[in-house]
């Protein structure tokens, strides 16, 4: 088939890249275990290939004078026996070498047969689908159900033990796993574009399978096949041991152990050494399988890379210069962004993440405070650090990658960060509670919502009986507007709709009458009418209980509806703060202004929608100067050179823009 080069390029399935080979080599050189395993397997291969050269012709002859010499001994003629001698006085090392072939080759043959059979059947089933697939699946199921050892025992004794029967029996046990994997992957690959392309240019099914599907399966199958090979080595050794595999006068390691067992009380080495050899060989094969998996499997590779980089950058972070502690002047600025009566006060918080590209500074010197009974909105695009701040307050930063680098979280006169875990837990879920964005993911799928509620009540209110907690749970569900609460309290999370689940989360958050409720994008996953209901519910609860709400959102229309005050965040920093009306009507930061102009509900009265050009910066490589300068329509040279400090622009308002005054005055 002569396809034009461009087509064949499309059709060439992604194969192992040349760098993979280099990576395999590097990792082998770095890890002595892998190196030793490879050398050991080479020795085994040499023992098989060079068998006739290595073995003396009389290796089977008994030398009764030397019976059962222990390892490292010398006989009367001065001959040295590294592994001692067996009950017929033969050198045990020689016996081991002689047994290598019959131990390893049946497993090798079986894995080849199993491999070919597995891939052929699996990819055929996966590719053709339909009845062929269903039929082959049944066969695989039955094969799995039938105990493999039983099958082996039956076949071997019925036909009489021989090496070839052994190979077939072993192969029968190994193909199913390989077939399953290749079927699954063929199903997936069938949908890929290059297969479609092949179909379009008229390749036959056989061609598609052999050229495009089978090669793609090879990498994962290679790993699985290697692992199965290790299993086959053990299985064939077991059959040898039972006398059902290799037959004397041929010898194998399993047979050597079986023979050695007769003299176990007098000659330990006859059992210990061949068994150890089997163990080491299987171990070497398993190590090689993991080595292949870690270096060939792309997904696994990236995971390992990420882990090693994370470690490296985590140590790196220790050396990073930390900006000096905020001066008194800066604190004065904070004072105006933070109400004097603040019940929860985030003070100059820095949070870092270790990523595979370096340290991400997700939150950089953020301060805000929420007064009792106030609704404070924290607004920003994704990646602005608003949710990370909330996670830091709730002590649920992703571990071990991220940590609070500096700063304080004041609650009721106590810095939560300095508090030990036990005392902090008494506050979390009790006095400060969190409502998360994705309610389905935030609930334990194996617990009823009643169990969730009872748990959080009893966790913080000691001495409440289960019965009382359950009554309170039903009352809470009523409060958050769940119809038929008594009937639904024993339902599981997946039995609720998205809006109802969000209500359940809110019920859990208010279960212990918190002083502060942090709602992290509480409405994002919901449709618009439900969003409005949830916001109304939150405001009602605030009015009834007097709790403070920190509303974390990217949705400016929600902010203008629900919040009293707003903190606008960008790239881990606070851009501007102020009363909602002021900020929406007269933004003091170009970012806020551009954000407003890009928000439909809020911008609509003014007539036009303008998206913010560009994308937020990566938290690993931040622009110098003002973080917003690359996207800012007002950016000047000074914005690229000097980071604007957060400063007061009016009573209760701050902005981190060099031109805040101009921006406030500016109207369009």
């Amino acid at each position, binding site marked *: 088939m002569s396809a034009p080069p461009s087509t064949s390029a499309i059709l060439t399935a992604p194969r192992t890249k040349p760098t993979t080979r280099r990576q395999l080599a590097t990792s082998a050189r770095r890890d002595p275990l892998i190196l030793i395993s490879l050398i050991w397997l080479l020795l085994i291969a040499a023992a098989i290939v060079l068998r006739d050269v290595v073995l003396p012709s009389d290796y089977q002859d008994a030398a009764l004078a030397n019976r059962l010499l222990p390892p490292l001994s010398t006989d009367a003629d001065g001959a040295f026996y590294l592994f001692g001698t067996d009950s017929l006085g033969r050198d045990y090392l020689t016996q081991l070498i002689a047994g290598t072939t019959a131990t390893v080759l049946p497993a090798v043959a079986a894995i080849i047969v199993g491999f070919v059979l597995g891939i052929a059947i699996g990819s055929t089933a996966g590719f053709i689908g339909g009845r062929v697939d269903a039929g082959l699946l049944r066969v695989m199921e039955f094969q799995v159900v039938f105990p493999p050892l039983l099958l082996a025992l039956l076949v071997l004794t019925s036909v009489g033990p021989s090496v070839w029967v052994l190979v077939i029996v072993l192969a029968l046990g190994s193909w199913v796993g390989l077939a399953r994997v290749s079927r699954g992957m063929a199903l997936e690959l069938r949908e890929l574009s290059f297969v479609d392309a092949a179909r379009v240019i008229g390749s036959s099914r056989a061609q598609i399978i052999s050229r495009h599907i089978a090669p793609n399966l090879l990498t994962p199958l290679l790993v699985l096949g290697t692992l199965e090979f290790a299993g086959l080595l053990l299985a064939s050794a077991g059959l040898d041991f039972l006398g059902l595999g290799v037959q004397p006068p041929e010898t194998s390691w399993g047979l050597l152990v079986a023979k050695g067992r007769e003299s176990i009380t007098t000659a330990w080495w006859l059992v210990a050494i061949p068994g150890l050899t089997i*163990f080491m060989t299987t171990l070497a094969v398993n190590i090689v399988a993991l080595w292949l998996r870690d270096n060939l499997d792309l997904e696994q590779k990236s995971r390992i890379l990420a882990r090693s980089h994370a470690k490296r950058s985590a140590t790196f972070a220790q050396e990073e210069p930390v900006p000096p502690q905020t001066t008194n002047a800066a604190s004065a600025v904070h004072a105006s962004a933070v109400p004097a009566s603040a019940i929860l006060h985030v003070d100059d918080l820095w949070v870092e993440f270790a990523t595979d590209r370096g340290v991400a500074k997700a939150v950089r010197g953020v301060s805000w405070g929420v007064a009792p009974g106030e609704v404070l909105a924290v607004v920003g695009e994704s990646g602005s650090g608003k949710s990370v701040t909330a996670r830091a307050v709730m002590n649920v930063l992703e571990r071990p990658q991220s940590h609070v680098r500096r700063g304080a979280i004041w609650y009721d006169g106590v810095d939560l960060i300095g508090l030990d875990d036990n005392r902090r837990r008494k506050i979390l879920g009790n006095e400060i509670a969190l409502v998360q964005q994705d309610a389905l993911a935030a609930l334990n*799928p194996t617990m009823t919502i009643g169990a969730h509620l009872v748990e959080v009540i009893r966790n913080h209110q000691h001495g409440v009986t289960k019965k009382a907690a359950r009554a309170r749970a039903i009352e809470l569900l009523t409060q958050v507007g769940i119809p038929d609460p008594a009937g639904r309290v024993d339902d599981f999370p997946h039995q609720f709709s998205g809006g109802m689940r969000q209500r359940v989360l809110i019920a859990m958050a208010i279960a212990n009458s918190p002083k502060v409720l942090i709602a992290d994008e509480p409405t994002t996953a919901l449709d618009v009418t439900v969003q409005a209901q949830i916001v109304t519910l939150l405001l009602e609860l605030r009015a009834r209980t007097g709790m403070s709400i920190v509303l974390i959102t990217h949705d400016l229309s929600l902010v203008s509806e629900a919040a009293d005050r707003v903190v606008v965040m960008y790239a881990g920093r606070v851009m501007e703060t102020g009363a909602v009306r002021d900020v929406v009507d007269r933004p003091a930061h170009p970012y806020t202004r551009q954000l407003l102009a890009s928000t439909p509900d809020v911008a609509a009265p003014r007539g036009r929608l303008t998206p913010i050009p560009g994308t937020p910066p990566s938290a690993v490589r931040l622009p110098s100067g003002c973080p917003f300068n690359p996207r800012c329509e007002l950016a000047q040279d000074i914005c690229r050179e000097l980071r604007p400090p957060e400063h007061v622009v009016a009573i209760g308002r701050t902005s981190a823009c060099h031109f805040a005054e101009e921006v406030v005055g500016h109207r369009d």
Partner: protein
Amino acid sequence: MLIYSLKRLAAAFLVIFLVLTAIFFVTQLLGDPVTLVLGDTATPTQIAAVRARLGLDQPLLQQYWQFLVNAAQGSFGDSFWQQQPALQIVFSRLPATFLLAGVAMLVMVPIGVLLGVIAAYRQGSWIERLVNVLSIVSSSLVNFWVALMLILVFAVTLRWLPTSGYGEPQHLVLPVATLSLLQIGVLAQITRTSVAEQLQSQFVSAARARGLSPVRVMLRYALRNALIPIFTVAAGMLIGLMTGAVITEVVFGWPGIGRLLLQAIQDGDLPLIQATVFVSASILVVLTLLVDLAYVRLNPRVRIQ
């Protein structure tokens, strides 16, 4: 749910039927059972009499049908050597197999799961490294060697425990240790992976944010949701043990059905082979069915559908 159960039951019977068919035809290959029973010195009249008694003079399909009918009635005939009903012999060996399987599971599962949980909780600790090493080492160990080495050390050299036998608690120690050494690593590894995965999930951090204790979060949130893969592996191990841990039973002279099967095969004891395989397969099918039903209990999301 009912339809699902009935379907599963039908499939179970089908598997047992297929297994019976397989045993019947495979054991045909064993050779003429009559010569096996009577030895080479038997006279033709004796042989003919035995053939007629065993129904072997019938056509093969007739024999197959008769075999199925008898099997359905729980009869596989008398053991050639022990002169008593084969099924009865198999049943008499079941307690030993079940005892070994039960005790081994009681030792393996708690230790393996505990190791895995600690390894998942303390990532990068020595426990995690231990679990990693253990899993690869234990999947590379060959059972008869472990068994013999334990005998060598604890029975032959130290003389703390008997080499083999059945009936006293100390007889259980070495076989259970052998089975555990081979499987704990795998169990710990699967626990570690699946618990670590659950620890990353949002409901775990949500639970932490509610101020729940780490132990509670681990047990009710992470471990509870990681149970399905752990259960699958553990169930596979249990099934393997209940259908006879052949090599372990042979090495330790444990009178279970695994050793019985090997003996029967070596003796060419046709009815006994058939009865043993039938019982093994039935145990397997029943346990698989129970395991599938247990999944439904483990995963409330399946329960509804």
